[in-house]
């Protein structure tokens, strides 16, 4: 889930102008959240989506190409009312409102500047808002990082929040795979290990940070609300010092890669050390959904799926081993 700056960066070598379609309203259910974007390049490249593909995105592409040629912005409503699909019962009957704007990919474009500013604020750990006027001619974007206090008439507001951190302790193959997957899911990935040979940029090229040192010290600054702490070290020397603190911290999730027997032994040690039953009960171990895989990519996928479920507030079946 690249942020908008990363999406624009991926287009920049190939395109000079793009139509940016933003989902600003939906009726009848939408598979993507409001604010989802689809970029249609002048040269034909497509990045992102406003639905899960199919007929909606295809129509948005047509509108985007038309508005690029006309060089103007427009609010467009796309209805899923294709007669054949209706007859076959293969339509969800939804309606999508989109704001489609031609933008230039250079840094001087006001829309690019507004999003760049908002994303930089969010990368610095604060929430930013991009406010887009929907009335009148061309849409105008303004960033209000602090002052914004709720929806207003005639505007569309996008909240650009810092990515939640996922701290992977133990630079194993499972962690390497999970680092890639978690980054793609929009999490900020921090890899921690005490071993320089494992926690390298070569092995974790997509991670936001790769930290080597005393793992419990390195994890401490990330014990914040919203954080996911994932222990992939399979080493009690790292697990116990980190769990002592993480299970008492206001983090969103603490999980440990272990079989059931080993996980129970770690829980017993933590109880012996004085952690309460409630604190020990916060530990998710074995970690991951029960999808049956045994390879590092498969185990990582099961963990990544659990992180998504936790983020979305879903209750799920966990791995049995």
């Amino acid at each position: 889930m690249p942020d908008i700056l990363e999406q624009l960066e991926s287009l920049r070598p190939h395109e000079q102008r793009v139509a940016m379609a933003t989902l600003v309203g939906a009726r009848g259910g939408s598979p993507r959240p409001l604010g989802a974007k689809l970029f249609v390049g002048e040269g034909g490249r497509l990045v992102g989506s406003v639905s899960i593909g199919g007929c909606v995105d295809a129509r948005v592409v047509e509108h985007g190409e038309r508005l690029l040629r006309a060089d103007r912005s427009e609010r467009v409503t796309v209805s899923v009312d294709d007669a054949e699909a209706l007859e076959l019962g293969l339509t969800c009957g939804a309606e999508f409102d989109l704001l489609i704007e031609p933008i230039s990919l250079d840094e001087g474009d006001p829309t690019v500047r507004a999003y760049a500013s908002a994303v930089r604020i969010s990368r610095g750990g604060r929430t930013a808002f991009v406010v887009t006027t929907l009335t009148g001619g061309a849409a105008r974007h303004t960033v209000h990082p602090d002052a914004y206090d709720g929806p207003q008439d005639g505007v569309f507001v996008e909240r650009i929040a810092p990515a939640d951190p996922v701290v992977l302790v133990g630079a194993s193959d499972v962690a390497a795979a999970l680092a890639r997957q978690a980054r793609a899911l929009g999490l900020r990935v921090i890899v921690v290990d005490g071993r320089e040979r494992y926690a390298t940029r070569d092995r974790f090229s997509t991670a936001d940070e790769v930290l080597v040192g005393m793992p419990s010290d390195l994890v401490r600054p990330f014990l914040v609300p919203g954080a996911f702490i994932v222990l992939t070290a399979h080493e009690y020397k790292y697990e116990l010092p980190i769990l002592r603190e993480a299970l008492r911290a206001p983090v969103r999730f603490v999980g440990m890669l272990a079989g059931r027997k080993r996980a129970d032994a770690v829980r017993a040690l933590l109880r012996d050390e004085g952690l309460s039953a409630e604190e020990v009960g916060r530990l998710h171990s074995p970690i991951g959904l029960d999808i049956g895989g045994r390879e590092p990519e498969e185990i990582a996928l099961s963990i990544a799926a659990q992180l998504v479920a936790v983020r979305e507030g879903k209750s799920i079946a966990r791995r049995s081993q």
Partner: protein
Amino acid sequence: MTLLYGVTVLEHFRRPRNQRALERPTVSREGYNALCGDRVRIELEVEGATIRAAAFTANACAICTASASLLTERVNGSAIEDAARISDDDVVMGLEADLPAARLPCAILPVRTLRDALAELRPRT
């Protein structure tokens, strides 16, 4: 928890002495075993030629943690000179365990880190 390494190791791993960070250490040194990933930090508060307080932080195995616990217990309140004379063998014997050769680096990591800390201290004394 296995008793493979004896009751002393187990006791000092489960109830480590001086496992904390000092508020104002005179010297702090971190040592690690590159391959296994054991990490230990030794902190000393020194007054004149005496170690007033010794403490450690470890993300380390039971042997290394127990060794750091025993070591800090031993040097607390001792003369710097005496602490500098503690040998690798002293530490290994103090663990009262029949350690395989492969685990000796775990046992002596704390004392080597202590020596590094004392060496840093020397020019100041």
